[in-house]
């Protein structure tokens, strides 16, 4: 395989060093109940269904998939907003699967989250200054007298005017609010930031500002990101490695360039071929893999390979009966498919003249 011109330079930590975050067989099943007083469990949603994942210091791991594939649930499991039904979670080698509120507290300084909706994730009745200062107040990392100074430094860092300290969220635009969210996440100098669709709600020009800001902060503070988005081009742009999720499982994981050149899983291929390309000539050369129908319900996921009912390459009975495991393909690439795609199956986008 030809190595790309300049593979996104890998930061210090790459496979081989100790992972910052490690997940082992993590599952989250939400019960479905019927009845008001006597609740009876009648089924469960397999939101996240067995995820093994390692995230290395200084890297950006992208997580893509359609609505309902479990990517946000996974983020919340990592942050311990939800408790995992099964499996184990480790941060810097320390297992925190069963930690309660108190034991989680010091860990929360190390992991922070940025949310999708900059309108809903800021309290409208608090000033920007006090929103960004909240982490200091909760964790007492900064003496009271220095809080304002620290907050203003943070505001400066993320490109907000420090004089706007006393303004309210409604006085800010979407892009500025997202900067507030970034400043808040950064306040405790965490090692890991989980970004859940941080730019999906923003206009393109503002989206690029926030992406550049996140990249700048990563370089400056050696941050590790888990970057969740449904926009494949954004994810590919920011990530060192990209994991593709389908119905609660990772179906493929690879470095950005490998994933887009040589996707192995037909689902990855379909996702890639669905991304609109802002170049009419290249777009007309694209091979389309159009998926039929919608994602099946995670309440009762299909047997064997979960993708088989929609897969254009499925062969029966194998795909219906035998669940594929993640197997290595190109260096750094794993995919769970019995009949993987050929190289360059989707976007053979050598520049034409």
């Amino acid at each position, binding site marked *: 395989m030809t190595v*790309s*011109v*300049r593979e*996104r330079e890998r930061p210090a930590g790459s496979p081989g060093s100790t992972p910052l975050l490690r997940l082992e067989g993590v599952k989250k099943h939400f019960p479905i109940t019927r009845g008001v007083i006597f609740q009876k469990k009648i089924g469960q949603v397999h939101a996240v269904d067995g995820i093994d994942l390692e995230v290395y210091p200084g890297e950006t791991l992208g997580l893509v998939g*359609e*609505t309902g594939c479990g990517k946000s649930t996974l983020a919340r499991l990592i942050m311990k907003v939800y408790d995992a039904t099964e499996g184990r979670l480790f941060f810097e080698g320390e297992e925190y699967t069963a930690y309660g509120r108190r034991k989680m507290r010091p860990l929360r300084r190390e992991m922070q989250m940025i949310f999708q909706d900059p309108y809903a994730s800021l309290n409208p009745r608090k000033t920007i200054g006090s929103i960004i200062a909240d982490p200091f107040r909760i964790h007492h990392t900064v003496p009271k007298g220095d809080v304002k100074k620290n907050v203003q430094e943070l505001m400066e860092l993320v490109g907000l005017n420090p004089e706007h300290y006393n303004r309210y969220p409604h006085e800010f*635009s*979407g*892009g*500025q609010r997202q900067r507030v969210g970034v400043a808040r996440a950064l306040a405790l100098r965490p090692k890991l930031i989980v970004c859940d669709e941080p730019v999906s709600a923003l*206009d*393109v*020009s*503002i*989206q*690029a*500002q926030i*992406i*550049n800001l996140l990249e700048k902060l990563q370089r400056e503070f050696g941050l590790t990101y888990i970057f969740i988005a*449904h*926009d*494949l*081009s*954004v994810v*590919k*742009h*920011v990530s060192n490695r990209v994991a593709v999720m389908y119905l609660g499982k990772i179906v493929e994981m690879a470095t950005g*360039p490998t994933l*887009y050149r040589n996707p192995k899983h037909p689902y990855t291929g*379909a*996702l*890639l*071929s*669905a*991304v*609109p*390309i*802002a*170049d*009419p000539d*290249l*777009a007309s050369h694209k091979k*389309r893999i*159009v*998926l039929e*129908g*919608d994602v099946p319900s995670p309440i009762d996921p299909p047997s064997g390979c979960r993708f088989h009912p929609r897969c254009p390459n499925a062969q029966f009975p194998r795909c219906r009966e035998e669940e594929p495991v993640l197997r290595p393909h190109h260096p750094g690439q794993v995919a769970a498919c019995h009949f993987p795609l050929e190289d360059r199956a989707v*976007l053979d*986008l050598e*520049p034409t003249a």
Partner: protein
Amino acid sequence: MSSSTHGRSGAVGEPLLRVRDLKVHFDTPDGVVKAVNGVSFDIYQGETLGVVGESGSGKSVTFLTVMGLIRSKDARLEGEVIFDGQDLLTLPDEELRHLRGKRIGMVFQDAMTSLHPFYTVGQQIVEGIRAHEKMPKKEAWDRAVDMLQTVGIPKPAERARQYPHEFSGGMRQRAMIAMALALNPDLLIADEPTTALDVTVQSQILELIDRLKQEFRTAVVLITHDLGVVAEYCDHINVMYAAKIAESGNTRDIYYGAHHPYTWGLLQSIPRLESEVQDLKPIKGQPPSLIFVPPGCSFHPRCPYVMDICRTKEPELQSPDGVHASACHLALSEKERIFREEVLQRA
């Protein structure tokens, strides 16, 4: 790409819709919001016009006005919207109602809020059909089921009896398209039809609109903020900024030779799946408020190529070749040089 006599790809004959110097101003307690401020363009039969711009650029209001959906006492409308020889701005409500839905169909972004939750999908399509054509209920129902089938909804007869909440997001959008096309309109206005959807569903819906466009010979307006969508499905593009058209041209003109610094900014802001390494160059600052629009060129505070004249004199939308037009004071040769040397990054 084939060109017609207009030099405009996809354009044949007289324009179906001709908008001239359209202005939509709203009086608000804070001042006059100039939501659309002098917009002119044509749409030809069978073509797909892409309208790109950020939130608040006036793209939706322009087409809501075309549909006659902006008629409040606080809104001041000026200009002409000529559809098939009639000025829609002066048409009485009653006549407008005959046109809307029958000859101009609309698909909105959020299908969940556009569908009535208490009626079945079939009933809602039937209501639209019977509002315009005298037809027994049974026949209208059959037409509705046919349309659901046309837009690719499996088991349409069963689905027609279901309520919107029983449909997934993509299915609802399909139902909306079925509704909009049930009366075979000449013009379909799709306002961010896929923004709330996953990419796989998005491509299904866009392919569907494209297929139906060929089948029904409908002109399509695709309002979107996604430059990728526009590249793949549109013949002609209007780029809007601060309530005006900043640039317009055939799709290839825009992607391989844009003339306006705002368009350049947009093209440099999108992460490209197809490029290996790329630095995003965002447009600095934010879009202006439509109450206090900057003097001169409204883009000048954000423009990296700003000149003195830009601060005082507003550039007009000018076209050297009659098709590709831009509103910018830079000299044409300078625009071509900048695009070639700084913007184009296909490597």
